[in-house]
């Protein structure tokens, strides 16, 4: 066994050990109790959390994906730098500033939370869509055109399937980030598991903190796992290997 592998295994072992130790410690101190004793509240908060993430991510996909496709069409290509600049700018505003700004326009609650997360999801999805399409060998598109494919056929049969890996990676980044960031929805009265996390912080109550934070973490891990599985279905077999290598 070489040194690199050994270090890799040890680090992984240490992380697993820490996680297990953490769970034993939390269970012994009955820190998960609120999930069961206040299960109806927990389920409401969980549902709110999921809703915020789902709605914001779906709107982001619905807007960023077509925008990425549009900007890579020959007609609009010249505007790519400009649109990318705007999208990048949106990303560079601190989350709390976006929340504050949106609160003054949309008021407090669910809508503001969704909007803020939506703004944050646009960049990874848009950027990965553009990168995925741009990374396609121009010769391939040239061959498609030369054989008599229409632009729409080139898009759906060649460009999107071969960019699918990159696009999905962008969606995955956005969703996983959203699940964590959605905890901030509490600050603007948007609900979600952030309610318990912030209550726990304010009251120095590990029970609330952990009953809120652990489910959020598990959700992020689960979403990551499921979206990776989706890759195996959506990304065509032949273009998978070429992306990985």
């Amino acid at each position: 066994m070489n040194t690199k592998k050994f270090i890799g295994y040890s680090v992984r072992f240490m992380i697993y050990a820490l996680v297990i130790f953490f769970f034993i410690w939390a269970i012994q101190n009955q820190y998960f109790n609120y999930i069961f004793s206040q299960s109806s509240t927990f389920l409401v908060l969980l549902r709110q959390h999921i809703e915020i993430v789902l709605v914001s991510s779906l709107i982001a996909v619905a807007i960023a994906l077509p925008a990425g496709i549009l900007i890579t069409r020959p007609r609009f290509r010249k505007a790519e730098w400009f649109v990318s600049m705007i999208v990048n700018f949106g990303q560079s505003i601190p989350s709390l500033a976006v929340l504050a700004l949106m609160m003054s326009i949309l008021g407090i609650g669910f809508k503001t939370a969704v909007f803020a997360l939506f703004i944050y999801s646009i960049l990874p999805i848009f950027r990965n869509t553009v990168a995925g399409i741009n990374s396609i060998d121009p010769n391939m598109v040239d061959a498609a055109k030369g054989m008599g494919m229409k632009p729409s056929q080139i898009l759906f049969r060649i460009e999107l399937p071969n960019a699918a890996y990159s696009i999905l990676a962008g969606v995955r980044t956005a969703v996983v980030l959203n699940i964590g960031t959605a905890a901030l929805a509490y600050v603007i009265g948007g609900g979600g598991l952030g309610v318990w996390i912030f209550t726990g912080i304010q009251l120095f109550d590990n029970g609330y903190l952990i009953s809120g934070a652990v489910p959020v973490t598990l959700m992020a891990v689960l979403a990551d796992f499921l979206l990776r599985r989706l890759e195996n279905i959506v990304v065509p077999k032949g273009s998978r290997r070429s992306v990985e290598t």
Partner: protein
Amino acid sequence: MIKFDHVTKSYEGGINAVKDVNFTVEKGNIVVLLGPSGCGKTTLLRMVNRLESITKGTINVNGQNSMELNEIDLRKKIGYVIQSNGLFPNMTIEDNVMIVPDLLGWSKKEKRERFYSLMGLIGLNADDYRKRYPNELSGGQQQRIGVARALAADPPVMLMDEPFGALDPIIREKIQDEFLHIQREVKKTILFVSHDIDEAIKMADKIVLMRGGEIMQFDTPSEMLAHPKNDFVSQFFGKDRAIKSLSLHTVKKLQDIIGLVEFDETIQDTKTINVNQDLRNTLSMLMNQEADQVIVTDDNGRQLGAITIDLVQKYLHFEIKGKPSVAQKG
């Protein structure tokens, strides 16, 4: 048939990539566009299927002005092969090959049958390749698939832009031979871009030699080698162009015209050469002195006679330099 009539291409910024080009690719012929890099070969080729617009002049494809046809329909009737084969990694080999038939709305059964017959034509096992993906194939296999794809809907006209340019020399020669073999069967009208002199001599019925967007000479390979029209043409083919032209002639032709010499049965150290071998290879074999005597055999291994450097020289002198009309492509 492809007919170029005063064809000119100017790019933005005033570059004239193609200047007043006139020539015709006859039905069933291969015309090779040859010339140094940047002389306008690719541009000229891509104007035929309208991947590049035509600034001035007309291009007729099978008697129809290409500008009067719908560009999508025009392209479906023209096979297109490029250097980096342009196969689609997300599709299986079968789907790749059957793209144009699919665009034309062929039925599943028709497509499947066509796929099998095409794979037979290019000498690959259809069942082995059907479900595989391009990235699992070698460069040579990919290029063969690229050729099959261009032939799929049986287009009368093919455009090939340095199709074998990225392959290593041994595989390239093999695929060139295979392709000429296929061409004898399918008899397409082909415009073929190359910057490789040997490839052009081997593949072409006629060569268009270009420089700076203009045609320097349009002739059969042997005519161009024997009678270069100007200094550029003779320099382009080089001082060894007489030797190059030998690759257009077979031992058989030499035998028919000036005959072979008797072979000496007492000489032990002999080698044999097939009567269909070209004279350029024969000459290098003789020059390398691989044996004391080289015996010519036919396909059945029958010994027809011996060949010597003197004979080749004589043939070169009288038949190629003296009477260029004898030099025709077999």
